């Protein structure tokens, strides 16, 4: 055993977020008073921390630190940077939206931003971890603060229920996956990802190892909110403050997929074990979530089911590996590309919903009637993002990520997955379209007062503008998303 070498610069983005969390708490403590400025101080601190962390992202990949001999506990690869980019952009957008909602609902701001950044720092770690234990612990770091955040929606009775549901689901799935981890350790004698990939290449899966691997997928499916581990999502999203729902649907979900990529890459040779499981998850998720989403009337609930459905599409490239490992080569860029495009579109939708749901606890789709005529800025951008989620122009990135994803099962001949995805996409269009149609209907008198919108919601408008710009940029140059992994 050599002396551990620690290169803090490699870990700087992760550490910055953790420090930023503490700083937000302190700032809130020392900036006294009940004014708006003091409530926003912690939030502004958090935004600054995320910006600094983004600036500190490694310029070059393949760096390692926390090494003991050959084994390093923290490794930065292209995947790491890509996932961290999604996490940072997602967190920054959520923070901007939170500046509005925290102020509106008088949520204790120090705690709120502290918890949010703690969770985000865990999210930074998942794709940098080099062993299964760290991956699972990092997932827990992401999850635990979110339970408290869901419960922070004051004045909503369902808040506690949603938080509890998410908590119980999480505990159950984590327990199962740690059991799986124990089985794997017993079977392989290591929990490090690189040794595992070497070992599994040369050995056939033992029953115990295979069981362990399948059990680990449980916690991943929970984070990604894939059917049948999705049941917490609609209640939790609805109960949570709207920006937290956005966080769960983008950052937390990205963590799930980062973990999935880590596990799948390590166990690439055991494709016959995980590929059918992932394929089943993908098919179940696409079918079930899209059908249920058709019946939703609440805005956030619809978005919750939509984000479950989108998780199904992101699983498709892995599901396609059934036909042979060749599919895995093109699977990774497709998954990352979809995550990036989906993040921009979904954050955009949530930014509009944050602004539109100010002062309401329960926003129905019918409440958005005529939004496009009353506030073209909100209504048209929302329709634009919804078209992207449905996979239609003019938000071309939504179309391109679907093309890249469905190309994988087509090239490997996984036709069942292709057929399910085609049907799911058409079903999805039905509910996105119905939502969009409401925006353009003739306004009824029960809808928004114009004055109610846009007042002092500045930060959320900035978030919305940023996501609109990002979506347009990605639509003009889709390679930024589809080829992100190759560019890093």
């Amino acid at each position, binding site marked *: 055993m050599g002396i551990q070498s620690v290169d803090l610069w490699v870990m700087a983005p992760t550490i910055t977020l953790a420090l930023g969390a503490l700083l937000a708490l302190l700032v809130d403590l020392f900036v006294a008073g009940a004014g708006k400025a003091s409530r926003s101080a912690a939030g502004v601190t958090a935004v600054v921390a995320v910006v600094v962390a983004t600036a500190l992202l490694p310029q070059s990949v393949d760096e390692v630190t926390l090494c003991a001999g050959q084994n390093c506990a923290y490794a930065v690869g292209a995947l790491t940077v890509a996932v961290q980019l999604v996490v940072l952009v997602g967190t920054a957008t959520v923070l901007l939206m939170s500046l509005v909602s925290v102020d509106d609902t008088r949520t204790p701001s120090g705690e709120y931003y502290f918890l949010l950044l703690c969770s985000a720092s865990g999210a930074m770690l998942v794709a940098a971890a080099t062993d299964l234990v760290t991956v699972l612990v990092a997932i827990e770091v992401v999850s635990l603060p979110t339970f408290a955040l869901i419960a922070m929606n004051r004045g909503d009775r369902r808040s506690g229920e949603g938080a509890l549901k998410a908590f119980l689901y999480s505990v159950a799935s984590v327990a199962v996956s740690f059991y799986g981890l124990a089985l794997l350790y017993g079977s392989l004698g290591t929990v490090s990802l690189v040794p595992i990939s070497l070992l599994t290449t040369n050995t056939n899966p033992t029953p115990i190892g295979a069981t362990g691997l399948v059990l680990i997928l449980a916690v991943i499916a929970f984070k990604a909110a894939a059917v049948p581990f999705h049941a917490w999502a609609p209640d939790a999203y609805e109960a949570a403050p709207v920006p937290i729902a956005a966080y769960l649907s983008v950052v937390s979900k990205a963590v799930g997929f980062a973990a999935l990529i880590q596990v799948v890459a390590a166990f690439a040779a055991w494709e016959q074990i995980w590929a059918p499981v992932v394929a089943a998850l993908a098919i179940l998720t696409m079918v079930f979530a899209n059908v249920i989403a058709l019946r939703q009337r609440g805005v956030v609930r619809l978005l919750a089911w939509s984000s479950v459905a989108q998780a199904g599409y992101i699983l498709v490239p892995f599901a396609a590996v059934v036909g042979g490992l060749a599919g895995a080569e093109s699977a990774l*860029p497709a998954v990352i*590309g979809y995550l990036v495009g989906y993040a921009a579109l979904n954050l955009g939708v949530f930014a509009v919903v944050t602004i539109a749901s100010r002062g309401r606890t329960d926003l129905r789709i019918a409440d958005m009637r005529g939004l496009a005529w009353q506030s073209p800025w909100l209504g*048209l951008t929302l329709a634009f993002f919804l*078209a992207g989620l449905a996979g*239609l*122009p*003019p938000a*071309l990135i939504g*179309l*391109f990520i679907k*093309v*890249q994803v*469905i*190309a994988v099962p*087509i*090239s490997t001949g996984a036709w069942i997955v*292709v057929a399910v995805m*085609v*049907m799911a*996409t*058409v079903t999805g*269009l*039905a509910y996105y*379209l119905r939502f969009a*149609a409401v925006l*353009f209907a003739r306004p009824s008198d029960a809808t928004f007062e114009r004055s109610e919108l846009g007042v002092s919601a500045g930060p959320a408008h900035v978030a919305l503008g940023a996501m609109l710009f990002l979506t347009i940029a990605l639509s003009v140059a*889709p*390679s930024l998303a*589809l*080829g992100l992994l*190759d560019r890093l």
Partner: protein
Amino acid sequence: MSWDESALSLLVALPLLGALALLVAGRRADRWASGFAVAIQGAGLAVAMVLLGGFDTARSDEMQFVVDQRWVPELDLHFRLGIDGVSLPLVVLTSLLGFLGAVYTLRHLPATGRPRAFAGLLLLLQVGMLGTFVSLDLLLFFVFFEVVLIPMWFLIAFWGEGERRRAANVFILYTVLGSMVMLAGFLWVWSQTGTTDMVALATLGGAGMSSAVQLGAVLLIGLGLAVKAPMWPLHTWLPDAHTAAPTVGSVLLAGVLLKMGTYGLARIAIPILPEGFASVAPYLAALAVVGIVYGAFASYGQRDLKRLIAFSSVGHMGFVLFGLSTVDPIGVNAALFGNIAHGLITGLLFFIVGGIKERTQTTVIKDLPRGLYQKAPRLGFIFGFACIASLGLPGLAGFWGEFLALLGAYSPGVPERLLYRVLLVIAALGMVLTAAYFLRIMRRLGQGRPLGEPLADISPSEAASWLPLAALIVVLGIFPGLLFNLTAPTVDRWLAATSISAQGD
């Protein structure tokens, strides 16, 4: 960049920029939006005319005005545009109908109002339609194919009538199902050949793809395009969409959108998947002929004038599909001719029906006034003219496409000769039936004693948007060679590249 390289990009970008300008202009633009749309569409038509003038007819089987720019390397997607003798007429038709639609809208905005949004959506629609016809990359073709959906959905859902929301939803869901299946076919071709370049793929002529792959890909791609065309029994979205759509929407739907389906079959299925297309051709022929007969019977039974013309479209597009399915130079050229002719004639018919509806507030045949020839002689004349053109009178454009499709079926490029000859007879009967219901509706509306309220005759703006179509119907009817000379070299090249056409001779 030279003119040759930028002309097609300009053609597609013009309406896009126009739509964006209307988007950012804000509410005040409502006052000048319709005029602005006429200017943009007019400029587009001018570009199309310059393209027509600059097109080298001596090499009409080659792609001209080609632009090739890498766009998305991960998907091997190139921004690749070009036109040959097959796409040029469609580009001109689209630009013309778009312009005439804008002119018509100046005075005849649908009741919903909102001229800025209406004009912007028509411009977006134009982007997708033109883009589809000039794309030389499978995925780019798919992208433009999708671009038309949302504008058309809005046009039907918000500016339409009756059960417009349901009709719009059925239209878009049906088409997206088709286009997703088509996309699967495209990606399959890509995974097998490693390219999405339509010219390169046509040169390969199916090389690199096994018979099974070709058959599978042609089924997937063909299914998607058949929904759009529409082929019986996938046509069920069409009558409702037409009935609900506003006049200009109907004109473009019949005049251009349907052609995207048949154009795709001609451009992609025949040259790129020749073997696969040849094996499905007899089935396509059978379904096409069912569509012809079904369209005729259904039209005969309609009580609504708009629905009648919608069903007549099913029949006419059946002839186009039948022509394509012959895999014979005469038949395929006839199909491409029929495409244009149907666009002109049915476009005109929908314009006229829209005009009648504006006057009478109804399209239910029973409630429509009789004696159109006396009440409004010019309106009556042009209505009669369009009906006669649609039923395929020799000397007008509608004749050539259908007659030569039948001729092509006499010596098809596939072995099933007997089948085609039987189908030929049935299709010919369909032509007779078509004549029957058009003559009946002409007698019902045109003749008889003019009772009730007087009817306004053609207004100047109607004349301006209708007469160019009528003129072209006559010109193409008398000089069909104008079009055949453009399409024939390309068709020859497609069919020569396949061994199938030799088989049939």
